[in-house]
């Protein structure tokens, strides 16, 4: 099996912000993105909002964002290529196609009652992309040189805090 990695960011909402991105600038590696999660982790009071997110393919990266945690699923895996960038809040990304849109409620979690934002604390319900996972007939999102994908808040919500996770593999072809 391919070397597998999990990226994770603690991302604060702001209007038009890239919440988690991966961009492959390597000529020698192919990145395959299998799953993406968006999970509410805000517990301090905030004036949240329901906001529209988009999963967008990326066509270019002209500058840096904030590097995020990337964990090897097996410590014997090769290191992630230095030309593969996994970032939060990179505003130097050029988007291509939108492959999915999803609403997210960014208000804080509260211990009593039920509301949309509370269900977003559950990872199974925060799974916003899983193409190819569990079926080898279906391709995951495959990122060749100078291709990427990110989750972007295209709405105006500010102040909420979510965990964004991305599961991907790295291989030579």
């Amino acid at each position, binding site marked *: 099996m391919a070397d597998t990695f999990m990226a994770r960011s603690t991302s604060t909402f702001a209007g038009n912000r890239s919440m988690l991105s991966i961009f492959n600038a390597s000529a020698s590696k192919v990145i395959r993105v299998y799953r993406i999660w968006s999970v509410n982790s805000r517990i301090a009071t905030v004036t949240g909002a329901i906001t529209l997110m988009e999963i967008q393919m990326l066509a270019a990266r002209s500058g840096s964002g904030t590097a995020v945690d990337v964990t090897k699923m097996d410590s014997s895996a090769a290191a992630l290529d230095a030309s593969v960038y996994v970032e939060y809040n990179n505003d130097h990304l050029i988007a291509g196609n939108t492959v*999915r849109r999803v609403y997210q409620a960014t208000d804080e979690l509260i211990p009593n009652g039920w509301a*949309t934002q509370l269900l977003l604390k559950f990872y199974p319900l925060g*799974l916003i992309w899983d193409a190819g996972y*569990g079926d080898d007939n279906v391709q995951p999102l495959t990122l060749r040189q100078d291709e990427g994908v990110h989750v972007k808040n295209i709405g105006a919500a500010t102040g909420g805090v979510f965990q964004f996770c991305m599961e991907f593999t790295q291989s030579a072809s």
Partner: protein
Amino acid sequence: MADTYSAYAAGVTFDVGKSFLGIFNGVGSGKVIRVYRMWMLNNQTGAIAGDFTSFEIWTLSAMSGGSDATVTKHDSSNASLHTSVLVKYGASAFTETSRIRKFMWCNDEATQGTLVADDWETFVPLCLIGRWGYGSTAKSPLVLREGQGLHLKHSGTMAIGNADVGLEFTQAAS
């Protein structure tokens, strides 16, 4: 694995009997289309007087008209989708052959602070309205040979609001 594509139609407006998203493999394509999964998401942005309405998934023997959905290759090295393979929303003409699913949908706008039907329709895992053969090579996805198609049709009477629809499929020579 086969060349895989995601089709997406954002903000498709409700109308009576409207084809929300369809895929049709035209005669002469020389391709076989296999449809694996379909989603419908409530991304209605403004306040509307929405209510429950019904949707149906049908196989097709003809489809024409409408607007192109956004089709994304899962791998940029994939072949382009054959020009005889149409992926449209709002198809103006179609011939339905077999109804394979019906479900209800609330097209009211989603909000935070509540947890009613339209709010649940914002969760991707809960909005998987079709999942055929996915994860098992012992079962077949929905296979569209030449002259065959599939669409999601609004079979109710709502004429306000909008929703997003997505489709995951492969294209192969056989």
